């Protein structure tokens, strides 16, 4: 009994204290302008390297497993070039660009800010809006760097990221499965209609769903790809959602059409990949960077090929968004920023590009010398050749207001998941457009 009474007393006391403190807080807090995800401190202007001493300098890097082999090589070369320079460079466990951003922000929050980060191209506006990084010095780009990729690292007309690993959305096709269902695998599948027809034939034969377009890993990327390839606009010039028009709705209706036809395998990307590699799933939309992994997983179990992502009408009416990542200097120390810049130049060179876009991760090599060497090499299977030599125009990935990057990603995840259950494209897309516009304040 007494316990209960004292409990109430304590609660009342706590409430009063809280209100008092809250009232005090209002006075001191209102003058502050801290809003949004801004990190403290600003990116340093890089010093002249000749004025810096590498001794006692430690560069802290943040990157996912996809960049690990290249970083390892780059660290060795940097240490040869600048003896005494130290690195804190362990690959993080996640390859997701949203998660990497989250990690960099959390690192800064715990007081261990990163100097050089591997940012997903989808995160470009997030970093530009919240952290104001320096533009890259294009004169420092190494020989052979393919400058057409710089467009994918450009925001507001300024180049902040020189892409390091580049990929494009593709359709992976199990040709053996197609053949056994009576479909000639050499007939190209370029339009939605052709894809749907083939998927229906396959499902009729096997009784199992025959295609997956993952909604958990890269829903924003595929959505943007479908819309732009159909000739639509994903992000309007003013920053609002542009995919609400008839073209956008038709382009995004691919998920719901496949779902209504009961040919869509509605599972996560990881599970779908396992199914594809086991030969249970004939079609899968994914990325060119994964071709090498698939090749290892499939082995000689069946014939397969990556092909261009089918589009609404079978024609490329617009560019696909560039997948991949690039390095961004976040250091608050001028000398560290200078070393980080030197490291970026190194990582875009032929040697490191070979480690970044080889047989581990089949990204499109950003260095043309690396591309030439890879394509001429003995490891160049037809599948890898497709991935390494992908040369269609690629656009910026995303581009909405930076602070809403993850919210928009989550909105599009939900949207594509709704479509994957056969929801009406018209209303689903309209709702997505209004949600995105609310998030970006348009």
């Amino acid at each position, binding site marked *: 009994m007494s316990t209960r009474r004292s409990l109430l007393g304590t609660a009342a006391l*706590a409430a009063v*204290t*809280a209100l008092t*403190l*809250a009232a005090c*807080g*209002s006075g001191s*807090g*209102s003058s*502050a*302008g*801290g*809003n*949004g*995800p*801004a*990190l*403290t401190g600003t990116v340093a202007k890089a010093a002249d390297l000749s004025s810096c001493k590498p001794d006692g300098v430690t560069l802290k890097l943040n990157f996912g497993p996809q960049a690990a082999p290249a970083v390892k090589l780059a660290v060795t070369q940097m240490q040869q070039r600048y003896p005494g320079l130290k690195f804190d460079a362990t690959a993080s466990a996640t390859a997701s660009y*949203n998660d990497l951003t*989250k990690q960099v*922000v*959390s690192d*800064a*929050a*715990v*007081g261990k800010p990163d100097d050089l980060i591997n940012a997903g191209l989808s995160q470009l506006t997030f970093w530009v809006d919240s952290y104001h990084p320096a533009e890259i010095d294009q004169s420092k780009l190494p020989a052979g760097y393919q400058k057409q990729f710089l467009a994918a690292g450009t925001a507001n007309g300024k180049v902040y990221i020189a892409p390091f690993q580049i990929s494009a959305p593709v359709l992976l096709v199990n040709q053996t499965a197609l053949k056994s269902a009576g479909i000639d695998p050499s007939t190209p599948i370029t339009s939605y209609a052709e894809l749907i027809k083939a998927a229906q034939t396959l499902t009729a034969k096997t009784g*199992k769903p025959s295609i997956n377009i993952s*909604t*958990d890993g890269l829903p924003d990327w595929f959505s943007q790809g479908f819309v732009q390839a159909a000739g639509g606009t994903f992000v309007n010039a003013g920053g609002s959602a542009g995919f609400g028009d008839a073209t956008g709705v038709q382009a995004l209706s691919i998920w719901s059409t496949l779902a209504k036809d009961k040919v869509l*395998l*509605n*599972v*996560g990307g990881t*599970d779908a990949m*396992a*199914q594809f590699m086991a030969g*249970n799933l004939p079609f899968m939309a994914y990325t060119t960077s994964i071709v090498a992994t698939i090749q290892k997983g499939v082995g000689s179990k069946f014939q397969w090929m990556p092909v261009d992502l089918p589009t609404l009408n079978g024609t490329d009416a617009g560019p696909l968004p560039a997948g991949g990542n690039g390095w961004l200097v976040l250091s608050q120390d001028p000398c560290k920023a200078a070393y980080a810049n030197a490291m970026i130049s190194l990582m875009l060179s032929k040697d490191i590009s070979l480690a970044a876009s080889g047989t581990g991760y089949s990204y499109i090599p950003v260095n043309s010398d690396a591309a030439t060497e890879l394509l001429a090499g003995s490891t160049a299977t037809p599948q890898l050749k497709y991935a390494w030599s992908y040369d269609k125009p690629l656009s910026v990935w995303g581009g909405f207001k930076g*602070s809403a990057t*993850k*919210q928009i990603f*989550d909105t599009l*995840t*939900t949207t594509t*998941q*709704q479509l*994957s*259950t056969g929801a009406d494209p018209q209303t689903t897309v309209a709702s997505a457009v209004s949600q995105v516009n609310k998030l970006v304040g348009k």
Partner: protein
Amino acid sequence: MTTVLDKPVPSLAAAGKPIDPNRTRATPYVFIAPAMSGIGLFVLLPALLSFIGSFFAIPLATGANWKWVGFDNYTSVFSDPTAHRAIENTLLYCVITIIPSLVLGLLLALLAESLRHGRTLVRTALFLPMTANLVAMAVVFKWIFALQGGFANQALAWIGVAPINWLNDTRYSLISVALVGVWRGVSLTMLLFLAGLTTIPGAIHEAAAAEGIRGWAKLRTLILPMMKPTIVFATVLSILTSIQAFDQINVMTQGGPQESSETILTFTWKVGFSYFQLGKPSALSFVLIAVLICIGLVRRRAFSAEQR
């Protein structure tokens, strides 16, 4: 224990009275100070700050300035459909995990208690889920619940039921993560009930046997009333575990698909550490606490009305 009893126990003159505190007035405070400071610093103070913080916009960065926004965070919680879903899902998750955990836990405890052979072995087997690392087990459950090739669907196929898309169907995702919650929860409640059953004196069982009270009647009139404290304790622990469910959801569904398994904690996590807004999750926490207090009050009233 016997070592302290070696000395003869003195007269019971002072029995029933707590130790005279006059001699060492400060001692109790010295004894509780370390523990209370920990609770104060890491539970009470953060909860208080969280409440205050729910009226501010707070960026994640260290030393960043807070900005007073009044009730904006609360308005934003109430107008956000995802927040609504998170609250609904949390309450639904609680209902579909707590009740089965308690009922099954009690049944299994009674069952295990009544065994004459292999009791220890059975108990140990039933306790194991409690020791498991939920992240590790969630990974395993993810395979078990896989649409194609998962064991759950293979088992369904044996009895002629069509496969269920456990993790990617909005109708089943919350149930799937709740099943993992129940799998683990039953193990804990069973342990508590078993411990509670052992405190019932043997004389009670003998008396019941002599009176011919058995089975359901014995459970209802004798065992359950005697176990009331244990039941209350197990309920409180189950509620706490269920409201804070995070590990298996984060691994198995990440709140999806279509937010169908988003709970308050996963949503808090997302808004705080992916959207980098720390004020809104605080507001959400206090909406949850308010809901819990309301439920608690209603329950308490119903309970005391019943007693009267």
